[in-house]
């Protein structure tokens, strides 16, 4: 089985570039240059230096003793929560801003849901002295005020998306519209492994540093690079793509993607795309999509603003269809309980997105010998309000 993108931008049946002609030159410019630029030794040098000295990579692979005891397995946490700005998102924004500079772009736009990708984009724009505009659903701006102010402090203009339900999907629509209207001087930094080809592949490459490090770190720690399980939450799927990437062809490594079930997969208030979605086209790619029988996109729900996207990246749709990745889901309650559990057992308050990955541990049939790596994609600072409102601690 092949898990790499093909020359037309497809992962099996999913992917491609389903875009109106007005976006074609922008996307085509990127498609024809991204690999060549990313492979330049000088690009790689700058990218890795920034990841090391600015982001704080490699992030630790931490053996969670008390959690291991509790689940009766060897559990390691890949500490993406320790990245500068608090999540894995910055691995991608560093890569894309370096690419944008080399393409001669002067302005950056991005979409954001919870605000993590927006903050990571605002951060690299400040770092590079580039003008930045972030679209954010008006509702999300109200829900995630601290991140809105963080972006503003960093000098970014935060633009409320007032169309649709005023959340992540609508912010993405607005960013795409802005890009249509500004085809030459602007680069659009998409925040996950979604969008038209080459975005899913490009973002995967930038995030693949996660599994590259896990391999080296495990080799040192247990004498071999491969665990029995790698577990990651899936919104659009960028942290999962990064954590899975170097294991895709290691058939003995079980890969587990955890989606947000919201109030329950069948409750009507959910974001579990593989359980509820069908193949469709949104935001430039063919992928699994939550939609009505008439092909209208359904607004997903999760307590975690970073997981309530109605689709998943085309790579994940392919990994689901081929069975390479096992997809499970965790409800709001399960995730919140898992977040509190991690805080109490390991002294780490996770992002609620990442808490979904922790919640999956109880759903796996682990044995005493199993080595499990959980990708802890972000820290819980941004979610303090939600933890407080949840209250059960």
């Amino acid at each position, binding site marked *: 089985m092949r898990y790499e993108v093909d020359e037309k931008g497809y992962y099996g049946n999913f992917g491609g570039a389903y875009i109106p*002609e*007005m976006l074609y030159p922008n996307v085509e410019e990127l498609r024809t240059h991204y690999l060549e630029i990313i492979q330049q030794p000088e690009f790689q040098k700058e990218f890795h230096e920034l990841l090391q000295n600015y982001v704080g990579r490699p992030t630790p692979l931490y053996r969670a003793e008390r959690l291991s005891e509790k689940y009766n397995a060897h559990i390691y946490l890949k500490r993406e929560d320790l990245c500068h700005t608090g999540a894995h998102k910055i691995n991608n924004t560093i890569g894309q801003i370096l690419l944008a500079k080399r393409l001669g772009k002067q302005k950056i736009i991005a979409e954001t849901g919870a605000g993590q990708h927006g903050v990571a984009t605002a951060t690299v724009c400040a770092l590079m002295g580039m003008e930045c505009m972030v679209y954010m659903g008006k509702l999300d701006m109200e829900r995630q005020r601290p991140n809105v102010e963080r972006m503003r402090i960093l000098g970014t203009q935060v633009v409320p998306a007032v169309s649709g339900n005023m959340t992540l999907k609508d912010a993405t629509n607005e960013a795409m519209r802005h890009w249509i209207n500004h085809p030459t001087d602007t680069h659009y930094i998409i925040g996950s492994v979604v969008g038209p080809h080459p975005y899913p592949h490009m973002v995967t490459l930038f995030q693949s540093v996660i599994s590259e490090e896990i391999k080296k770190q495990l080799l040192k720690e247990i004498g071999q690079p491969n665990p029995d399980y790698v577990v990651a939450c899936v919104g659009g799927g960028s942290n999962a793509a990064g954590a899975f990437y170097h294991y895709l062809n290691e058939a003995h490594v079980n890969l587990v993607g955890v989606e947000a079930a919201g109030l329950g997969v069948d409750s009507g208030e959910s974001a579990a795309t593989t359980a509820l979605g069908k193949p469709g086209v949104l935001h430039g790619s063919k992928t699994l999509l939550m*939609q009505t029988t008439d*092909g209208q996109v359904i607004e997903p729900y999760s307590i975690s603003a970073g997981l309530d996207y109605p689709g998943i990246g085309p790579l994940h749709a392919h990994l689901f269809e081929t069975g390479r990745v096992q997809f499970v889901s965790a409800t709001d309650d399960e995730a919140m309980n898992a977040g509190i559990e991690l805080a109490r057992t390991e002294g780490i308050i996770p992002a609620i997105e990442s808490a979904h990955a922790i919640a999956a541990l109880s759903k796996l049939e682990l044995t005493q010998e199993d080595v499990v790596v959980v990708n802890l994609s972000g820290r819980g600072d941004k979610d303090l309000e939600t933890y407080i409102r949840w209250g059960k601690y």
Partner: protein
Amino acid sequence: MKNRITELLSKTKKPVLSVFYTAGFPNLDDTEKIAIALETAGADMIEIGIPFSDPVADGPTIQMSNKKALDNGMTVALLLKQVAGLRSKVKMPIVLMGYLNPVMQYGFEKFFKDAANAGVDGLILPDLPLDEFEKFEPLTTSLNLSVSFLISPTTSETRIRKIDAISSGFVYAVSASSTTGAKGEFTTEQLAYFNRLKSYNLKNPFLIGFGISNYTTYSQACAYGAGAIVGSSFIQQISESKNLEADIHQFVVSLTTSK
């Protein structure tokens, strides 16, 4: 039978006015009423938009009409039924325009067949990639459906020729690198782009759309292309309408005659 679009564009000496409106807007069953009023008022062709929840190529006006149409309950199946009903009541070509996902869920082949059966003459699917269309081309050709693709000011000549080759009926020349919506007057760069298109002597006639909102922009588009496509400003005109026939008549007259 000849395709009505090809017929229209090969016969007429005067430029063509094509009007875009969203199916199911302002009210669910206005599709037929609007079509008849447009033909009566002097429009030459209609493009009926299939509403979608996420119209990324559209500005605020058409976003609004899409949302309202969906709230009203418009679907692909219902639209095809409405078109079948109105087909015998107007002579002009009927084009359906829509984002890919609703069409994909309906089923591509079923959609092409049902559209042709309903009396649809042409299709515009802006986010359908050219090479994805290739596999459907024999079917749409056999159904006598024209399929028009978009070009924009940033489309290269090589690509314009490729798009022209695969399109039938007409090529849709988007006037600016922009989403849909009225923008005021055309700039000299836009006029130069229209002129460039004209000089290519494409296989298909081209119609200019996006940003046409008054007599000046309408007549400029007609001076370069085979005609003009108007959408957002028409939708604005009918969105608050208390008398569709009268307002549509007034719209067409004011768009096509100098003051």
